[in-house]
């Protein structure tokens, strides 16, 4: 299982092959064929790409460039005793032998 996970991270970053990506992209475009022509006509050009971005977790082709990353880091309630205990050993006030492991 470990080697598979390892491979997945490498794939996530460097990609497996472009053909895989291409098949992902063609899918939502294909589905729009079912809709009426009018809908297609009035579709803003960026829309399809935006949906794809969300699905693939990839960066928007024309997106803003930001190194700062503040996604789900804020979600925990750090006033809660149990939550605080979960990182206690990452501090010098915690258990040193546990942190050394």
């Amino acid at each position, binding site marked *: 299982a*470990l080697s598979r*996970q*390892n491979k997945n*991270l*490498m794939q*996530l*970053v*460097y990609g497996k092959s472009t053909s895989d990506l291409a098949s992902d992209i063609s899918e939502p475009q294909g589905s729009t064929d079912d809709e009426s022509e009018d809908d297609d006509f009035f579709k803003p*050009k*960026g829309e399809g790409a935006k949906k794809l971005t969300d699905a693939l*977790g990839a*960066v*928007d*082709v*024309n*997106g*803003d*460039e*930001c*190194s*700062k*990353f*503040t996604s789900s*880091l*804020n979600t*925990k*309630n*750090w*006033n809660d005793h149990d939550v*605080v205990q*979960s*990182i*206690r*050993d*990452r*501090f*010098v*006030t*915690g258990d*040193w032998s546990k*942190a050394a*492991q």
Partner: protein
Amino acid sequence: MAKINYKKLQGSQNLRLRLLLSTLSSTPILIVDIRSNETIPGLRPHEISLLRLIEKVCDDCHVEINETGTKLKYKPGIVMGGKYLVHDCGLSRSIGYFLEPLVVLGLFGKKPLSIRLKGITNDSKDPSIDTFRSTTLNILKRFGVPSEGLELKIENRGVPPLGGGEVVLSVPIVHTSLMAVNWIDEGMVKRIRGVSFSTRVSAQFENAIIHAARGIFNRLLPDVHIFTDHKAGAQAGNSPGFGISLVAETTSGCYISVDTTISYPRKEETAEIEDDERADLKPPADVGVEIASALLGEIEQGGVVDSTHQGLLYILCALCPQDVSKIRVGKLSPYGIEALRLIKEFLSVTFAIKPDPSTGTVILKCVGCGLKNLSRKLS
């Protein structure tokens, strides 16, 4: 003249990383379709400003932009560095946006760089100058960058929308090359430091932020000290706002940082809202709790740097001599992943990326591309 072979790229994404890596690897690039389908097509003011900045610190570089700004030709030159340079970063992105690539370029210059940058010193989008001072510069030192001459002075602060800040950046040059690192021990957090600032508002904002942030840290660590930096008059720039930058220092010399700034939105974002209807600034107590939580989130994630500095960390590793660097990060950040991809494209350095399941972190290994400071050698 010999025909130049341009590397062809598409879209506006990662322009900063592309320009930086293109310059370091002396690879001319041609970017097409820059926001060609958007209402306002082409390069944004901050991107143009970045190109001007690169022209300022480099010799013999060539920038060509088509009429609509959707096409950019860039032939890198030699990084010269130099003293008493001045650059106006404009108001569309903060100075942090420019500092990130500039500080790396400066290392590989012919002469040490000293430049005055004007614009926005703190905003919510880019790492603030306080974070730069507390964390980014320390990460550079880890790679053998001499601490002498590595400095960022804050003269005036300025927040969006009108800015008015001024900083002076000094970067020494690396004499031969960087030093590869074996940096996988994140250590334990021994103290938390920070700076809270305010411009054109009451100093009470700072105190409220600090009080709220301390409340979160108190259960974990007594050694918490957050300084205040209340600016008034010309030093406070042109817009009201406040913010905070926090850094957790560990027993193994890692710096984990977060920052945030609260100010009124830029004009284009509030085009529909009447001026007198502007919303109040977010309560400082909430900001304090949020930012303290964000720092604990970063600490929980693990790794020797925070998620904001991953891109820089990878670039520095890739620029090392042909020696193995080994580093640990918490979770791969989106910007970090983009950096890894572009590093492979421009420098042909591929990282071996392995999860470490026992700690939930990721270990990366690479062999540097062996970039020497060529600008200096030519002299």
